């Protein structure tokens, strides 16, 4: 953290969310989903957005990624207003956004299809597939892979274009708990080596503490930021440490959940 703190706040900001609110209209009735969200994400930061289901955390991420328009407010990335999705910032979906009709190789190569240097393209695709541990499955199709492997393909597809920012919407939600743990530690390994800015939406308190540098806790109806909690523990994180327990208590308290059952 030392070096990063030396840089001033304005320079560090990568993604800036200013006064964003969102409402849907259902049967002529306005339904507020997000109210007045302000947020700054630092360059190279791993930020988790934590909240109960229905708190608008996915909507917030979709607005930041440019898939949905905010009702009020705006999102800027390095000073540039977000008007739609952009290949420099890649979204990893929970329900497998990879194409089932394309092989692992073709899925990972999607963002590199316009590269003229085919040799270099080949090297990047192979390197990325190796990075997520899918060597040997290049010619496989998604339906032949397990849930965890499909999610690795999606992460590889995102990494292949070396994006500045990766958005992840509960990417490991559909996986079993052991696979989820493995995927988390691999994601941290990749984040540490590739220095990406990652915005990660989850409803899992442990997941947010294991991954994030800062956890943005949201409350529901309409969704707003309850507080932002610094984790500040070095990786690999000790799940049994008193500091971990303290943060966990704080997050549960913010979520308003009684967790000592």
């Amino acid at each position: 953290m030392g070096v990063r703190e030396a840089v001033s706040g304005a320079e560090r900001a990568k993604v800036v969310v200013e006064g964003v609110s969102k409402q849907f209209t259902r049967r002529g009735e306005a339904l507020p989903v997000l109210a007045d969200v302000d947020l700054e994400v630092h360059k190279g930061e791993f930020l988790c957005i934590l909240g109960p289901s229905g708190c608008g955390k996915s909507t917030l991420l979709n607005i930041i990624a440019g898939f949905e328009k905010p009702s009020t407010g705006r999102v800027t990335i390095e000073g540039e207003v977000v008007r739609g999705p952009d290949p420099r910032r890649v979204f990893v979906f929970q329900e497998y956004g990879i194409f089932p009709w394309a092989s692992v190789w073709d899925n990972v190569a999607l963002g590199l299809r316009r590269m003229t240097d085919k040799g270099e393209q080949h090297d990047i695709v192979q390197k990325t597939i190796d990075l997520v541990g899918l060597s040997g499955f290049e010619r496989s199709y998604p339906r032949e892979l397990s849930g965890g492997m499909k999610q690795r393909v999606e992460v590889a597809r995102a990494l292949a274009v070396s994006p500045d920012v990766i958005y992840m919407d509960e990417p490991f939600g559909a996986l079993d708990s052991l696979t989820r743990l493995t995927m988390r530690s691999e994601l941290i390994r990749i984040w540490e080596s590739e220095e990406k800015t990652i915005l990660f939406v989850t409803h899992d308190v442990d997941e947010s503490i294991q991954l994030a540098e800062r956890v943005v806790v949201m409350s529901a109806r309409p969704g707003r930021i309850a507080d932002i909690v610094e984790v500040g523990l070095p990786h690999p994180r000790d799940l049994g440490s008193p500091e971990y327990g303290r943060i966990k208590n704080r997050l549960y308290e913010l979520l308003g959940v009684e967790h000592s059952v």
Partner: protein
Amino acid sequence: MVWPFVVIAVALVVHGVSRRWPDLVQQIVMPLGVAAIGVALWQIGCDMSGTDIFPTPWDTVLAFGDIIESDRLLGDSIASLYRVTWGFVLATMCAVPVGLVVGWSTRSFWAMNPIIQGLRPISPIAWIPIAILWFGIGDGAGVFLIFLSSFFPICVGTMAGVRNISLVHQRSAANFGVHGFELMRRVVLPGAMPQIITSLRIALGVAWLVIVAAEMVGMDSGLGYLINDARNMGSRYDLVVATMIVIGLIGIVLDLLIRRLETFEEVKWGYVKQ
């Protein structure tokens, strides 16, 4: 009466064999058994009614010799297949692009869908007078009718396939800057492909039904015409039934051929449960 004992004996044998070779029984012995029962009922029906017009199974076998010898079978089969092939291929070439565009673009969906849904329920058979008016008696009318009967199932199936493409795939494509023609080729077409293939299968089945009817009414060659001809020339119902069997067999072969499309790696995902 010996029959009850024969039936019981056969049942016992089948039961015994099915325990030892269950696959063999399920896939070969049972279907053949059902077919044999069907043929037996056919024969019994002929015997009991004492008909001299409707052919027995054996009459039908002999009739195959007649139609093969007269060179009609091959020529008429080719005539029917020719019309179906051209009508079907032309319909596919038109219906798939139209379905892709109309399914994808909301604006063209609103513009085109009512017309498509309005024309779709009109039986291709109802078009026969118009087909003959425009193309005369011959291949042109047949190709036109098959085009019509194939176009709507393929177009509607393609539209449905496109509209079923999941939001995450659309967003993935948008995220990686896939637009325009490339979007059609890389996402919309492959995403709709399993349903397109299903609609091709349905359309080909319908086409094979329609061509026989069309040839019976408004053409002077083809398997449908052969059936009509056989009846008109001295009530040769043995030839009628033999031709019907040929029509059924060709239909099965056509379906088997088009089902090969379902085995490609690019579309298998659409047919297996995830």
